[in-house]
């Protein structure tokens, strides 16, 4: 693995490390929000639930370039949210943080869907039983719902991570393709494809992509099995 890594050019190494960083940050930052939204959609009874659901799933059906452009409008230097955050030192435009934001949003529907399904599968009667044992609603959520939904939460997180590793359209639209700053693995592959004589580099990055993806899927399988064993009740 280290041998393979040192065989990469500096640009290629940067792209891989950046992609891993972006995907980790995107997944970690969106997970709490994803769990909260999934819970609202699974258990909430409020006006606007349908609207929230549509909004969450929108990035799944919109062309990624549209999502990226919307992010640029909202979070760009002169966008309403971007302008508000800039004095606080939070900048997304043309930064790796912007790539993480774009990747997080693109992976969000996948994450929410997996978690929502697993929360819906948690037997409400168990939560009710926990209630009669004196557990307050938040305690119930933390001690019953969350552990029982764990396999789905892991699956959702891995899906979001994999999506972030491969996200291209929204990222390149929002934060461009700056080597060392916003050039993720897919962006780097795209640049190399455009470069005459860089076929070897393309192949190397494609192999890396496949390895990372397969590793993520295997890791999620294993984690889900561990979690499922814990919740199976045997």
């Amino acid at each position, binding site marked *: 693995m280290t041998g393979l890594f040192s065989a990469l050019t500096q640009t290629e190494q940067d792209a891989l490390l950046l992609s891993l960083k972006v995907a980790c940050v995107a997944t970690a930052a969106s997970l709490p929000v994803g769990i909260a939204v999934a819970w609202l959609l699974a258990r909430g009874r409020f006006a606007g639930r349908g609207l929230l659901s549509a909004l969450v799933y929108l990035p799944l059906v919109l062309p990624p370039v549209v999502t990226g452009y919307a992010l640029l409008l909202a979070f760009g230097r002169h966008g309403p949210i971007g302008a508000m955050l800039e004095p606080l030192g939070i900048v997304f435009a043309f930064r790796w943080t912007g790539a993480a934001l774009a990747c997080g949003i693109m992976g969000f529907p996948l994450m929410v869907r997996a978690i929502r399904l697993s929360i819906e599968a948690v*037997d409400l*009667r*168990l939560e*009710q*039983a*926990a*209630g*009669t*044992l*004196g*557990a*307050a*609603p938040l*305690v*119930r959520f933390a*001690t*019953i719902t969350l*552990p*029982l939904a764990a396999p789905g939460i892991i699956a959702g997180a891995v899906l979001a991570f994999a999506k972030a590793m491969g996200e291209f359209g929204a990222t390149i639209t929002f934060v461009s393709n700056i080597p060392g700053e916003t050039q993720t693995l897919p962006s780097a592959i795209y640049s190399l494809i455009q470069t005459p004589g860089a076929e070897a580099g393309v192949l190397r990055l494609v192999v890396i992509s496949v390895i990372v993806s397969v590793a993520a899927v295997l890791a999620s399988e294993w984690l889900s099995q561990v979690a499922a064993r*814990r*919740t*199976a*009740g*045997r």
Partner: protein
Amino acid sequence: MSLEVRAHARLGDFALDADIATDAPRVCLFGRSGAGKTTLANVVAGLIRPDAGRVAIGDEVLFDSAAGIDAPAWRRRIGYVFQEPRLFPHLNVRANLLYARRSGGAEARAPALDDVCALLGLQSLLDRKPGGLSGGEARRVAIGRALLSGPRLVILDEPLTGLDGARRKELLAYIDLLASRGGPPILYVSHSIEETARLADVVVLMQEGRTIACAPPAEAFDHPEAESAAGLTAPITILEGRVLDHEAGATRLSLGPMDFQTPRLELEPGEPARIVVDARDVAIALSNPIDSSVQNRLHARIAAIEPHTGGLLLRLDAQGVRLKSLVTRQAAERLSLAQGGTVFALIKAVASARQG
């Protein structure tokens, strides 16, 4: 501790109309399935909000529509053993039992884990996961879990459903033991006369969402609607007596001023016992048939004669012991039975139920 429930609730086509006031330690909610027993239990536990009424345990008001009080279920401190054990599958038995303690729901006066395990025979199960337990074991863990939250009332909703005969007997003995060891009062939901007659200090009869009686078992089953509420084809009588002695597979009971023989009961002399007598199993004779095989022959006065779909229902008074007999019209005519007449009641069979 007193239990007061007055509740009206509309749930779709179903209407609940409950009125209970008792301070008995063992209350049985009795009725056919669909009578609203579980609904009423859920109202007490705070899982269903009634439209109007009042629920109070002791001086603690849990719900009062007039005063705007509605304590959430998790603040009511009512242990609930549901029809299904509802154990938490991701926690082992020990963690299930201690759930209330860990989640901050157990009162300081909750019993010790060791005591509850000893009472319910749970020591060997502590490290197992719920998925590997048998039905009876899971039920016992659920009861233990409810007890360990230190509840002010324990609701047991048909806890014997789906268990075979031996397990039923064993678990019923545990529940019986529970109440007689100074544990919390019990609200026991059942459609079984046997279980009800065995456990109840007070029976709440339910029919079509209404509570039609709230009285000691003998009195509750004398209610005119008891038969239809219980889904019986003939009325029953519950007799309360005391064990005198055992002989050769039979137990002799004192029943008021009389002796009474039943199949052997697992009780010590002096202990109270209840027996259930089906009105069809009480035959009538005008003279004492001493040459009959029937052991229990009570001299009785006919207190009332009522028409019944199965013939005529005789309400008998045998020296203070009230008994019902169902006879055909032809038989009543042949024997010229009339109110105030004296007869011999021959009790052919009894279903026994004990109270510990």
